């Protein structure tokens, strides 16, 4: 008992001294941390550690109560953070989805890949998984989390890109009320979220040249490409000719200064036509032009250093192709293109299935 009394007296005295010390210094205008470090007013302060993370996690904390997140994280503050946000990530999540084709017909057996935002540690990933839609195109996911991202796919179908006004093949959903504009509300069993796949047509055995980039001259010297190989060939031996004129000589590329540039894309003894619909796979029979030209004046309102376009192409020998072409006048000054060529003259089908790719010519 005597020892307990002595301890209590010591504690009271210590607390009193601490209170007096605080009262004495609280209005001096001296930074809190300086006082805590005993640094004299006006001297250089060195309050935190260096960039090494050992220092970041071993900072001297301001009294009296280390606030959440103050002076870098500590194990305690991290725990409090996790405890605080954990309930958010533990919300019950029931997701009801349905996969349909472009006509609204259910798609059975579609792959449904999902990732759930249920890991309170933002540096880690949440639950990820994959399942299949049933005969009605329906699928259900039950878990816990703050949100969920879903994407669907199936062989023989094209995925539909995001569109604010129409269902697509992928979407993010928020499992709370005040979602952002870019997320969708959680669906219900009676009002399932729709995911759309577009049924692919009959693919032709196309020669596919993967996306590739080729440097081109700046002075308009033609670059000819064989669309069936993606290789640059001698003048007269190719079927796509690109000419670029770029007046950026002497311009510091790091200053963002605009400059004049022009380009011309020609199909030798054939023609090309801009392709604007993503799922347009049949080349038109007529309406081709010999060349396409684009450019930017240096004083253009929204100047860019290049352009990217999709084209249907009719080759001199009657073959048809589609080409994604980009002309980039900055940096390495190059074109980037990808092509799909139907090797059968007159066949305008440009629907592609990688498993049925033509071996090339």
């Amino acid at each position: 008992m005597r020892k307990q009394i002595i301890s209590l007296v010591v504690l009271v005295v210590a607390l009193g001294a601490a209170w007096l010390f605080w009262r004495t210094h609280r209005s001096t205008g001296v930074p809190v941390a300086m006082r805590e470090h005993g640094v004299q007013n006006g001297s250089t302060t060195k309050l935190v550690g260096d960039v090494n993370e050992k220092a970041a996690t071993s900072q001297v904390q301001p009294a009296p109560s280390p606030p959440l997140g103050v002076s870098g994280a500590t194990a305690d503050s991290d725990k409090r953070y996790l405890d605080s946000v954990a309930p958010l990530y533990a919300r019950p999540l029931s997701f009801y989805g349905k996969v349909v084709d472009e006509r609204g017909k259910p798609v059975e057996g579609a792959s449904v890949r999902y990732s759930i935002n249920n890991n309170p540690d933002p540096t880690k990933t949440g639950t990820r998984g994959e399942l299949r839609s049933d005969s009605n195109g329906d699928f259900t996911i039950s878990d816990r989390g703050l949100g969920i991202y879903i994407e669907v796919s199936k062989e023989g179908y094209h995925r539909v890109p995001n569109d604010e006004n129409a269902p697509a093949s992928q979407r993010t959903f928020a499992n709370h009320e005040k979602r952002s504009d870019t997320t969708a509300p959680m669906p219900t069993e009676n009002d399932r979220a729709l995911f759309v796949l577009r049924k692919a047509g009959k693919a032709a055995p196309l020669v596919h040249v993967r996306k590739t980039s080729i440097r081109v001259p700046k002075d308009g010297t033609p670059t000819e490409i064989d669309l069936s190989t993606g290789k640059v060939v001698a003048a007269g031996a190719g079927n796509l000719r690109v000419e670029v004129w770029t007046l950026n000589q002497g311009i510091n590329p790091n200053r963002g200064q605009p400059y004049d540039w022009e380009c011309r894309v020609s199909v030798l003894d054939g023609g090309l036509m801009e392709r604007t619909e993503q799922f347009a796979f049949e080349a038109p029979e007529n309406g081709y032009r010999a060349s396409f030209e684009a450019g930017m004046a240096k004083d253009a309102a929204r100047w860019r250093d290049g352009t990217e376009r999709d084209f249907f192409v009719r080759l001199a020998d009657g073959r048809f192709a589609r080409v994604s072409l980009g002309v980039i006048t900055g940096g390495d000054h190059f074109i980037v293109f990808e092509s799909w060529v139907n090797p059968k003259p007159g066949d305008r089908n440009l629907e592609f299935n990688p498993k049925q790719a033509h071996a090339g010519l």
Partner: protein
Amino acid sequence: MLTTRHTTEVAQVTPPTMVVSDLIPGTGHTVKVRAIDWFENSSAWSATTSVSTPLTGPEPLQAPRWADVNNDGLKDEIFGANTGLISSSIVDYSYDTVSYSTWTSDFQVMSWFTFDEGLSWFVTGWSVPEEQETTEIINTVLPVFHFMAEEHYDYAVCRAVTDPLGNTAYYRIGYYESLERPGGIQQWQPSSFWPEDAFYMFPTVAARIAKPIGATQITVPGGAVFNVGVGGMAGTITLPEGIELSVDPTGAVAIAGVPGTTGVPLGGSINLAGGIVVSASVAGGRIAFPGGAAIGIGADGRITLELPSGTNPALAQAVDTVGNLLQTGAGAVISVREVIDAINGIFGPVIQLPTAGPLDAVDLGITAGGVWQLGVTHSDGPTQWFAIVQPPEPQIAVDANRDGTIEFGPNDGTSEQAPYRFWLNDDDDVDDDDPDDAENAPVSSADWLDDKIDGIRDLEDFARLKINLSGIADAVRQGQMRIALEWKGAPGYTGAPGIKLWRNLSPNGGTEYLSDVNVARQHLALREPGTIQGALRYVIPTQYWTDVGLSASQPYGNLLFEGTSAGKDQLVIKLLNADGAEIGEGGGVWLELKNIKSMYERVKATANGAEDLPFPYNYVGTSSVPSPTMGWSPDPAGYAFEPAQGETQTYIVAVHGWNQTYERSVMYAETMFKRLWHRGYKGRFVGFRWPTFTGLSSYNDSEYRAWKCGVSLKQYLSSLPSGYTVNLVAHSMGNIVVGSALEKGAAVANYALLNAAVPAICYDTSGTVVQTGWGYVTPNDDPDSATVALSYQGRLANVSGNLVNFFLPADSALSAWEINNDSPDGGRYPVAGARPHQWPEGSINAGYRYQRTAPAGQKLRVVRVAGERILSSADEAMGFAVQAPSLTVGADGRTRGAIDEWVDMSTYGFGSVHSAEFLFSIQQTREFYAELLLKLRVTTQP
């Protein structure tokens, strides 16, 4: 005597003709005719006409050029532009006037020289019998030697001679054969050294049809003078430059007039056009060709053929074999088939005999292109020529120019000065599909230490090797020959490089191991790699060649290697026989293996010359917070940056995000560097380190630092050498650092924002990205301009450069950003710790305040028990006090304003994984990195 018995009517004019056959070849005949009528009245005989039947024998094996150049009635072979059987080393022939006496020997062994004008002359010695002198215009000529099969002999060296009537005869060399020339001169003398020497002499044997006697002087265009002394065995060539080449009667060659040798018959050498070096001394002569081959003439008259260093040993063996066979002499019984079989036995079936049965003749020759040929002649058919082609030596190559294709040629050539650089596999990839466990940083155990591939992520630390065994594929597949790889220890090597070899299971040895998950996974079952370290060579198992279907049409072996120790050397192919004995060396490739940290640069932000920044909320009751001087410093970490040969003048500076330990930020940088490198990027890469905190509750502290460190980044970018295009890539909160630098005027060409943890309203002030449904009241739209100036609103709307937003709509970490951005009271999320940054302190809620109703310029403040302070720094305000009414740029693909382009990363399958570009394997991110390069205006391989 023949008569024609045909009669004709007087009025008929059809000329009577008759063919007489079955005459003896090589015989002469006379013909005369007379006419007999129906009444057997006979006319007188006509005058006699002489005719000869042609000699029989094989036709010339390859049409030589014939002409009677000295008017002696015999056609002589002429060498010159069309010397199909003779070495291309013959430059020209020329006419000149010499005196000769008689035919004593047609052939002489000569060294030859080429003068400036390209003329060739032959220096030799010969004996001159005392015969009558005469003068003729002659050619220097070169014979065509025919190796012919004859009865009793399997071969003989013969020369074709055509008589004045155009008949061709073939004469053995080395056996007495006489031919009476007009004037009774005997043409051929017995010669003991034929034919074996003839074989060796091909490149340098010349022949004359006459021999000079007495002193002769020849002056040729260009001013050179050729003197042949009396007695034959001496001669000189005087060049216009005053250099004199002489041959004494013993055959010794001396050069005078060359500095250091004047007057001293020491011999010497002459450098000819095309890199040919001719040298001679009393010990003999030598002609060295640029490729390393040489022909030597010993003092004993023997000719030697020196093959280039590294010549396929099979060829050398073949030459020896054939040479030995031929050297057995004319008296030996050697079948042609035996020769051919010997060649085929070494090279494989390089000589396909057209039909079975005995051969009549075989010619050995060299084309003008220097290709040895074997001509096979049957009695009933024309000669067929077969090139004896040296099998190309085995080659090894890497994708040195990183265009995605390995070529055996200069495009993918390496050298000591420009080796193929690759990094050691000393990181610590984890064989786990969970991206959270992708790679350990710091490293606990380097990947190369175990004899397995640590997950498909590990494959980014492997590079390709391709071996070309054209010409010996069958022998290797069948185990008759084996292939080993070893370090050569070539001049210029450094360190002690080491690699482990693995199979490349990609189709055709391609890059699918880096791009196709399924192909990559096949590699995980591989074990027992080959080790090449120091003197330890690796013999590729024959089974490997069987497995890859090695054949003449598929002569390639495709391998992967990982670096195990640093150094530079040439990795070469060694050829072994079936017993493992080394029989030669193939091609090589220069490799330089190094710690990856010397292949890219690292720099770090500093404050006050160190790395410290104050916590601003610890300063209350005062008007300001100490502002350290920001800077940067290199961070070599023991590995100074070494620029690569042929680098492009491009920088990509990568800035990491929040919550990164030093080791982890380095790992992220190296992951990005590796993946860009594999896609062909050849410019410089920099990892920029800034002092983020780690720990989940350190976000606001870190953002404050990020804004501060923009100064450091700007300073660093300004220090980069001129002429380089500067590109930036930042991840997550690293985009705050970059935004701060851009705001302060940093100049860059292109900037890729990856998962940018920057409020969209910083760049886009159109209102499109404002989330009105959140109901936030923030400083960003405060009527007080001083308050807005401390907010995010439009802060980066006018930065320059080409900005590309790589966004991920479902990004889980940016979702957590939304929580942190929330207001603790009345916000969307019922959690503490959100913005404004506050915490319980004593009896109050200490921390930052935004009071919209407060006086202008005083709406943002930090309040603590000890006092308070009005905020005047945007860095502090944005770090702790200001909420954003928008999503981040990285979560909202609608962000425009200063953003020029946008890429939805969900198309790469990144889902909601915030750091997928670092945590997913290279196979899963390959298309992303290709697009990243293109958006940075850098070309990429297909």
